[in-house]
């Protein structure tokens, strides 16, 4: 798997399958936390945001699975987690395309994780170019002020 954020490819500090700090499926969260290191949890995009409330202060990374790029539930889930106060790393993992990178960041994701095949077909240059392609938005986000905000400032 390859990991990227708005600067390009980055190293993944989290490790699946038994390393530390560990990234585990949500069901294994409790036992992973017991081991004391920072942990990341991987959740399905159908997870109820409220069910994660007890975990928001205890995990350092939440990775939301995108089973198909057309399935946009992860965008709502990410926004909800941020609204509910999650301040850790938020990762979109799976089937995303570069043209969704800007949307992901605007919804509160910090990073996107894709498999090697995808990374080969859509190298990081495409992801960064897609991000730069549209640098304005009508919607408010942590990523940038909305057009409505820019109008307010210009007035």
């Amino acid at each position, binding site marked *: 798997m390859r990991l990227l954020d708005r600067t390009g490819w980055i190293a993944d500090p989290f490790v699946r399958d038994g390393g530390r700090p560990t990234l585990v499926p949500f069901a294994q969260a409790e036992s992973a936390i017991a081991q004391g290191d920072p942990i990341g949890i991987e959740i399905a995009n159908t997870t109820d945001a409220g069910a994660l409330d007890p975990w928001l202060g205890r995990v350092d990374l939440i990775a939301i699975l995108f089973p198909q790029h*057309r399935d946009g*539930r992860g965008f709502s889930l990410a926004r909800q987690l941020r609204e509910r106060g999650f301040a850790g790393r938020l990762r979109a993992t799976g089937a995303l395309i570069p043209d969704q990178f800007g949307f992901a960041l605007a919804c509160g994701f910090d990073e996107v994780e894709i498999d090697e095949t995808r990374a080969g077909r859509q190298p990081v240059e495409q992801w960064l170019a897609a991000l730069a392609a549209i640098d304005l938005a009508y919607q408010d986000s942590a990523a940038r002020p909305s057009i409505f905000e820019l109008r307010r400032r210009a007035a």
Partner: protein
Amino acid sequence: MYRYDEFDARIVRERVAQFRDQVARRLDGSLSEEEFVQIRQMNGLYLQLHAYMLRVAIPYGTLNSRQTRQLAMIAERYDRGYGHLTTRQNIQFNWPRLVDVPDILDDLADVEMHCIQTSGNCIRNVTADHLAGAAADEIEDPRPTAELIRQWSTLHPEFSYLPRKFKIAVTGATHDRAALAIHDIGIQILYDEDRGGFGYRISVGGGMGRTPMIGKVIRDFLPKEQLLSYLEAVLRAYNLEGRRDNKHKARIKILVHELGLPAFKARVEAIFAGMDRDRIEVDQAERDRIAAYFAPPPFADLPARSEVLEAARRRDPALDLFARTNLTAHKRAGYTALTISAKPVGGVPGDVTADQLRVLADLAETYSFDELRISHMQNAVLPHVRLDDVPAVWARLVEAGLATANAGLIGDIIACPGMDYCKLATARSIPIAQAISRRFADPARAREIGPIGIKISGCINACGHHHVGQIGILGLERQGVENYQITLGGDASEHAALGERLGPGVDAEAVPEVIERIVAVYLETREEGETFADTVRRIGLDPFRPALAAPAPQEGVREAA
């Protein structure tokens, strides 16, 4: 009408540049077709039966002359010299080449137009009453609200990958000319002194397709300053829980139906209660800024009666007929909203040539404060014409083949493109419209029949809105042959209703005769002042069912047209 500021213009340009790059990446293989399909759809580009099809957004159906002339140029330079007006107030071109589309998008951006989100699983063109700003029954012009929603919904990061398409309509009049009841979200502007003035009644879950449904009211009165957050709450509930397992069960109407309105509303209200509205809503200054673009034009003070028009009508029976059918009462004395029918007898409903578009541009510029509207009935409207000018406008329309005096009458048929163009279709729809149109070509007869709405869909996706046609016609296939089911009793207005099937389907050749017989029953049974819709409501479908029976050889059945 709205004019782009630097931000609106920049986002459209950047979108075009992005699509240009995406096309290049598709051609070099770094984007697969599966990935590209969604992208091209979100830029309005479909693949149809014979070619690509490009759907251009006409926000709330409003155009100026410059834009209209640009559409004419695009039709000629890149397409086959015509465009098609749609049931969502857009225009479609049927023959663009993929490699030309980025240039077409740049030409559109030159006149503040775009194809953003006219297809795909995202929020589509926001439609509104085509008589906005003109109609006598208007409470408030719906277009500032529609424009605000357009901006809020454009490239929305959370709602660009919905389970399915999402359609929003707005009306600001007491009569619903925007078909709110069949939209995913319908927004009715209200005025309530006790509740603080202007607000919105919100309905959800209307739609056509395989399982048509009438929308249900979810909020009686939403204060204006809460609109965007409430829409976000509805969209979020839908994005999270709308079905993604079955394309035909993926609209919000299915979710509302399966949860039941109370449970769905509870979801929405819970999300709404937790939202940070300051982050989402715009301030009053922005609402005022947008509304200022829709301020009334500088109407002259005119008498209610136009001697010029009256005299011209006495001289010319054809003009007189046109004035009776195609003029609508205006809020300002001495003015009218003039309907330009794109349904000439035997023509393709909604098709207009590049030359005709130029005539419309000229007329809008000269006679209607540079404003043209496209209605969801696939016609055009000049919203603010002086009654004095009607004779001159009509004469130009006659020259251009746009003067058919059939607005709202039997010849004013709504038809989707059907299998002549569309890959999804199960049957053709246009030839059916043409045959009916020719059968009822006599204007006197059409006037005798009075207001009647025929809507034809070429498949179960119902883009022709047949479910809400007073007469609905659905084209299917039976044993390898096109077969047409007739429904009666549909209504797209504030009295929304879904039509009921009259009986078994009939062959294409039989349809005009069946319509003939349905009309005959109406004419025989109607009471004083009853429209077709009134009579159907009063007597029900049973008296009409014999219209489907095959004729016995001995009966003196009229020759098919």
